[in-house]
């Protein structure tokens, strides 16, 4: 960002709650059904029908509140947000306004300087999603798909504590990881289950007063969040430096053109005429209910990361990566438990080869072709010197390709490491004999050449010689 300017960002994240049925009706929330097949009379806003709260969303919001160290309100109230739109069947959205279910939370991220930074969470409230307007493939008309109408959302509003696009992304990633840890949202960003709006403003460094903000709508990937915010920062600075004023407005990010453009200005903004929904009772949550939910809280990313560095002696960055998702952390711990290999070695493999293979095949950890126990089996063979780390990569690829577990692959391909000193010595002798020039140079003090000799020995043994032994024997013989 341009020197002399400070940016102020607040995020509103919409996390779709992973309930089976909708927030106020019994219709299914499953994604991808034929249009309007998952909308019942309540979702369609038929005359006379009434909403009934799905209790599961209260539980989920409570868990979320506890996870971000927030106050779970003893009494929260659903309110109607009134506006007309064809994909909003009732002409109002049921949301929460003055009394949200969660307030005053916090989340820690690692800031641009690598320090822990507290980001305040103003509130999180429950609401129903709207349907979808469809224009493609229709001539001179629009279609409405109300399958999504009534899907439960948790809208999580941060304080304007974020100071860069990178921090915004770090916050969003952390939040993504928390909702998935809690299993309250599948976090699927392509399907829109996790998306955000960003409020962005800039001000000269040192100015107390906030600049005029714009709201960037519907950012549904981490990359888009970063790019949209960065575009918007530059745009706002340019406007001000050119002597203009930032207009308070809602802007839409166009990922194809990598730019934001105005959607509607403040003058056109709606007066939503919020008022408490008389069809629904206030949500009352007892201290006992909160206590029960607290008992059910899983270990959360921050605590898990701390434990991973303490218990497994992992590098902090690796612990961070491994605890980013609960299934990945579980995989790691299952593998550690099944092998005598050092946890850091397990971490290296999970973060390295395993994650690489998953990415390559676009698989989730749950669908990994090599299970945690199978990976542990492979690492045990490194640990007991049956194979070298380098050979292990070859074995891993074969395991990934479905050729069996580590031992089967090692046997079938004859990849067992040569640890017989006599055999290694014989090869070493051959290598020394074949490279008199290099031997002379080495002996004259160019000790870097050890790598050259090791390479030749490994080549001659197709990589199967134990590298430690090779090193040791080579040094001994070269010094003779």
């Amino acid at each position: 960002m341009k020197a002399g300017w400070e940016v102020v960002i607040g995020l509103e994240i919409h996390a779709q709650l992973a309930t089976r049925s909708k927030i106020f009706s019994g219709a299914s929330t499953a994604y991808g059904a034929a249009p309007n097949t998952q909308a019942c009379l309540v979702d369609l806003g038929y005359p006379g029908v009434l909403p009934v709260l799905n209790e599961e969303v209260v539980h989920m919001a409570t868990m979320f509140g506890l996870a971000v160290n927030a106050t779970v309100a003893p009494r929260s109230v659903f309110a109607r947000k009134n506006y007309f739109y064809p994909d909003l069947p009732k002409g109002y959205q049921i949301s929460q306004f003055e009394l949200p279910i969660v307030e005053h939370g916090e989340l820690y991220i690692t800031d641009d300087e690598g320090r822990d930074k507290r980001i305040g969470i103003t509130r999180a409230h429950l609401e129903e999603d709207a349907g979808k307007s469809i224009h493609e493939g229709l001539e001179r008309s629009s279609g409405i798909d109300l399958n999504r109408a009534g899907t439960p959302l948790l809208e999580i509003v941060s304080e304007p504590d974020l100071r860069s696009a990178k921090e915004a992304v770090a916050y969003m990633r952390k939040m993504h990881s928390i909702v998935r840890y809690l299993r309250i949202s599948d976090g699927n960003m392509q399907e829109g289950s996790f998306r955000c709006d960003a409020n962005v403003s800039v001000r000269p460094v040192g100015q107390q007063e906030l600049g005029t903000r714009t709201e960037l709508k519907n950012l549904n990937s981490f990359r888009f969040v970063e790019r949209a915010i960065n575009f918007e920062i530059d745009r706002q600075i340019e406007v001000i430096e050119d002597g203009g004023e930032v207009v308070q407005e809602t802007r839409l990010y166009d990922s194809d053109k990598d730019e934001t453009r105005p959607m509607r200005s403040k003058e056109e903004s709606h007066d939503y005429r919020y008022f408490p929904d008389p069809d629904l009772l206030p949500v009352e949550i007892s201290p006992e209910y909160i206590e029960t939910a607290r008992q059910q809280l899983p270990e959360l990313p921050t605590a898990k990361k701390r434990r991973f560095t303490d218990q497994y002696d992992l590098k902090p960055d690796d612990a961070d990566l491994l605890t980013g998702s609960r299934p990945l952390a579980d995989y790691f711990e299952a593998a550690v438990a099944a092998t005598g290999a050092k946890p850091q070695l397990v971490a290296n493999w999970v973060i390295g080869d395993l994650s690489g293979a998953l990415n390559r095949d676009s698989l989730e950890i749950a669908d990994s072709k090599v299970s945690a126990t199978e990976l542990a089996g492979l690492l045990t063979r490194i640990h007991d010197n049956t194979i070298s780390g380098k050979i292990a990569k070859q074995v891993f690829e074969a395991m990934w390709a479905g050729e069996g577990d580590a031992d089967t692959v090692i046997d079938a391909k004859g990849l067992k490491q040569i640890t017989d000193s006599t055999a290694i010595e014989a090869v070493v002798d051959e290598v020394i004999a074949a490279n008199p020039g290099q031997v002379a140079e080495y002996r004259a003090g160019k000790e870097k050449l050890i790598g050259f000799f090791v390479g030749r020995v490994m080549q001659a043994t197709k990589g199967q010689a134990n590298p430690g032994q090779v090193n040791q024997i080579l040094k001994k013989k070269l010094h003779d």
Partner: protein
Amino acid sequence: MSDSQQDLFSQSMTELAAGLDAGDFTSAELTETLLERIGAHDDKLNAFITVTADEALQSAARADEARASGRGGVLNGLPVLHKDIFCTRGVKTTCGSRMLDNFVAPYDATVVEKLAGAGAVVLGKTNMDEFAMGSSNETSYFGPVRNPWNLECSPGGSSGGSAAAVAARLAPAATGTDTGGSIRQPAALTGTVGIKPTYGRVSRYGMIAFASSLDQAGVITRTAEDAARLLGVMAGFDERDSTSIDEPVPDYIAGLDRPIKGLRVGIVRQHFDAGLDADCAVSIREAIAVLESLGATTVEVDLPNLDLSVPTYYVVAPAECSSNLSRFDGVRFGHRADEAEDLMDLYCRSRGEGFGDEVKRRIMTGTYVLSAGYYDAYYLKAQQVRHLIADDFRSAFADVDVIAGPTSPTPAFRLGDKIDDPITMYLNDIYTIGANLAGLPGMSIPCGFVNGLPVGLHLVAAHFAEETLLRCSHQFQQHTDWHKACPKDFA
């Protein structure tokens, strides 16, 4: 046709039930008699929007079969009408509006389902003020209902069709809904019995919403005993309505015969202020004297915020209605304007054409009071006053069992007299609105005549004290004949 069949129409539900049980007539015969009567008389009244003759005859036949095989619910074969605000599967539900002139609900309201489940035979759906917004039945898209006691007069509203039909002996009972007096005021103006139960006593599911926090379903009958019989079937918790209350439903009939000796009757001093017609006041005082003669004692009570109830109501109810009626946008059901140019044009014209003046007036009032900058001054303030009014009643019910007074300030007024003067029209509900704002049960029973037009006695009780209202009314009716009077054109 035997003699007994000729006057079947004048019998109460209780009497009809006894006749059916005794085999004096069948439900099919009863249904035919009433359908004929509706055919002969409804031109004068316009009480019906839809007569469901075929469906009625079919369910009557089913009821007769059930009876023959020893089955059938507590209302088996008994005729009822539904106010056209209750959704009925396969039969159009208009809510008195052009907006829903073509609307056929794909489901039954809970009330409809419960009465059908008990074996009731639905003869048709009754006319009403558009979306239940009105006190004279003149706002109906289907034209005003006329009062059987004087066809130049209004039967009241919004459940005017139900009240007129029951008064004219076209059916012994009809459902209604009451948001500010829409059951009780028409009952008073037509000489029938109308009860609005405690808010939450009867499910609102399938009842097209006007003002959700005030709307409550009830019944219009000619006797308190019939009201007890129907309410027993309609009442109860419904998991589809979060505001319905999970409270056991007592046997309302069982307690009717208990004398009211010692019943403490509250008389509200504000009720007899200048607004009340002097002749009506005389009838009301005489009715209270009857209660005293039956052993009740009277206590003067104070409802200091009573005069605030109409203005409070006309903030809260329009606010809720402005939001509730947003779903009528011409997109999914109901009236849709032809050849709309764009989305805004579709909205504006569909709603502009579909809604009548009174509905538009209330949507605009409601939109205004909820607007940014006005919310605190109007909506929030009205909610605060609502609490004060509820507190007044709570204090009063510490000392009395029921509050008795007038249902309406005047007897039936002439059609056309008040329709162009909304404020005067709104003041018609001054005595009834308080019960809605406080969620209390209220009941109107016939207690006299002024210039040949019926007068209603209004009784209000504490939450869930419907039994007290029904017992008090029943005992009153055991000692008076006002409810037996039949308008002469319909005798």
